[in-house]
């Protein structure tokens, strides 16, 4: 009857961990590929609003980001009013035109009409600032814009 447990007390073989490095490396490569290193650190609060009907932004290199929001906790000295951030610095409305010009200069000529200005604005910002930004963009002829939002239902 005891055909199948002859040895009596046989020790369980140890689970081979030889493939563990491979698994970990696989995960590692995934995260290395998926990681986007931020090129500018945010000095403002940037809690984006959410919207349901969103479209994907096209090519990454044809998008220029304009951030706005209240200064984050470590930049309390800048006041509590919402501010614009371009690249790494706090900026004023008048800095938008040179910023757009600089972005355009760094692109090839045929790419310029495809440029999109993505507005990454904190949800607690007043619309006044946003329409100021939009007016500045209009003056420079940058008409394609995108309100960057999280995906999700906007209705509470």
């Amino acid at each position, binding site marked *: 009857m005891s055909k199948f447990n002859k040895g009596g007390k046989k020790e369980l073989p140890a689970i081979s*961990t030889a493939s*563990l*490095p491979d698994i*970990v*490396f696989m*995960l*590692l490569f995934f*995260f*290395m590929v*998926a*990681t*986007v*290193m*931020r090129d500018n650190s945010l000095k403002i609060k940037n809690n*984006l*609003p959410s*919207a*349901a*009907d*969103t*479209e*994907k*932004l096209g090519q*990454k290199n044809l998008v220029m980001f304009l951030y706005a929001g209240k200064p984050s906790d470590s930049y309390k000295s800048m006041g509590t009013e919402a501010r614009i951030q371009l690249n790494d610095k706090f900026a004023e409305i008048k800095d938008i035109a040179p910023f757009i010009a600089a972005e355009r200069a760094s692109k090839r000529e045929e790419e310029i009409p495809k440029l*999109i200005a*993505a507005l*990454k*604005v*904190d*949800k*607690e*910002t*007043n*619309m*006044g600032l*946003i*329409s100021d930004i*939009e*007016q500045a*963009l*209009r*003056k420079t*002829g*940058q*008409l*394609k*814009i*995108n*309100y*960057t*939002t*999280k*995906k999700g239902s*906007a*209705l509470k």
Partner: protein
Amino acid sequence: MAKRSAPEVNAGSMADIAFLLLIFFLVTTTIEVDSGINSKLPPDIPPPDVKIKQKNIFTVELNKDNQMLVEDELMEIKDLQAAAIKFIDNGGGENPTGEKCTYCGGERLDDSSDHPEKAIVSITHSRATDYETFITVYDQLVGAYSILRDKLAQKLYNRSFKEMEATYNDSKSPEFKTDKLKDKIDNIKKKYPRIISKAEPK
């Protein structure tokens, strides 16, 4: 001399090193948000002096307390989309070239929009309106157009408009950037043009 085989390198710590790197990348990863609502600003030239009938304009007004007036009446944001669809899809009259709206599913009332090609949604907001409220409202209006376009696409081509656009931009699909599909998409876009005007705040 006896032949000595090269000693094997101990790879036991390989997993540890990989784990260390893995944790570093896990911590630094921020999955970037790369979606949003596309919009186009009007060019910086004085607007042409065109007479637009009041019944072709759907006014949405946001005040500093984030309350919404639609056609001069207070409305909850959740009711906005249905109201906008009703207005755009009304089809009570003719388009600029004098054709009746044959694809509209609206009630064809006399005091609402003539034709989807003529219907204008106008958003006015105060300087103190919250961005979040504005985006919510804008999203609802964009959603209203999406629903109408979807309905028309189902009727004409038996597929959803979203799926058509996705197929058009998908390099793996057989219809990637084909003129035939582009014509269909443009046809629907032309029948329900998304005319959302944003007035400067007072």
